[in-house]
């Protein structure tokens, strides 16, 4: 049984990839590095300061989820082109216990841990495209894209 929720999604068109990096997320220090890497690429993609901050914050949330709830995993990040748009795509993968109820997990204020319960739902609002796939026992994959305006 597998569940997926898609919000937005690139409006068709081909996506070309420019620069791909993969970073492990196994310690708190890796979360810090993820933020730095994403900020660097956001600057490369010529995002505004607000968009940089938003995508960095989303990456920080998702990386911490990967670490805390997924038991560690990795982030693959690249700069993507679609038509004339340029953006940053980040994919967070873990092979943890998975999320049994995605709708619940995406509800503001709900948490299975001790956080504020805004990480997943909040980061969905911080990016342009947000996709999550998870099934119990098979880990979780979250894919986000932020387009520069």
């Amino acid at each position, binding site marked *: 049984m597998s569940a997926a929720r898609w919000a937005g999604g690139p409006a068709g068109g081909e996506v070309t990839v420019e620069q791909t990096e993969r970073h492990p997320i196994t310690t708190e220090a890796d979360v810090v590095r993820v933020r730095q890497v994403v900020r660097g690429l956001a600057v490369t993609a010529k995002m505004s300061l607000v968009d940089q901050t938003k995508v960095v914050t989303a990456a920080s949330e998702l990386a911490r989820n990967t670490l805390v709830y997924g038991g560690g995993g990795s982030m693959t990040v690249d700069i993507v082109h679609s038509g004339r748009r340029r953006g940053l795509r980040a994919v967070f993968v873990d092979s943890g216990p998975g999320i049994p109820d995605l709708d619940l997990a995406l509800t*503001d204020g709900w948490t299975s841990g001790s956080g504020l319960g805004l990480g997943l739902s909040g980061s969905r609002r911080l990016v342009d495209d947000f996709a999550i796939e998870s099934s119990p026992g098979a880990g979780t994959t979250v894919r986000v894209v932020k387009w520069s305006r």
Partner: protein
Amino acid sequence: MDVGHGDDWVGPLSAERDGVLTRWIGLVGKVLRSRLSEAELARELGDLYTALLGGLREGGTDLDSESFGELRALLAELSGTRARQGFTPRETAITVFALKGAVAPVFEERDAAYHEYTRFSDFIDELGLFTFETYAQARDAVIVEQSDQLLELSTPVIKLWDGVLAVPLVGTLDSARTQVVMEKLLEALVETGSRHAIIDITGVPAVDTQVAQHLLKTVMAGQLMGADCIISGIRPQIAQTVVSLGIEFGDIITKATLAEALALALRRDGFQLRRTNTAGGR
């Protein structure tokens, strides 16, 4: 471990001490260039060589044995200093490995030269690995030290006015740092009898839910101590991100700048700010 005949080597190695040392210093000096004076290098390598011969004289080639205690101590000291002085791993390792090249001529003149040289070479490899291990340990220690220092450095509690404290936060706000900030702030509140605390986040690059949660906890702890807490330094991009994330700061007072927060704290204490001389004004 190999308990070979280390003492076989002692004779020729002591006899040719000067020659070996000169070649060794030459080889190491070429890599380290001007980073170490020749006199210093000569002293270091001379000490090492003496300790090495001392250990071999007792028989074994087992680096872990007691006879090599002095050599191990010297190597640990050397690699520790190198790590602290910012030498690269290569520059550090070459100090030991260059000894192979330096002693090669000594073995060439002996019977069964190849066999013996291989054994000696293995022994030097052991020394090299030991040096490298201690080098890495020293480097790790430096890193831990630095992050501890950073933790301390980055969380000063500043008295802005009688009864008004400020904590300027810079960098990443993780759990460990929040703990330090909270403790320092609460202590300072008691010590100075202050009624206002301003937490300034101008230097925090991103406020995610964890940072927000840490901030909220610090503010709540301050309020429990009877202090008015203000969060200042909320830049436009942070404000927009916090709103998108859906974080609510509740009835906690926030200000865009530290100056505004100070002005508010002073007003609450009944101070009035007034310019009495317009000559210097614009």
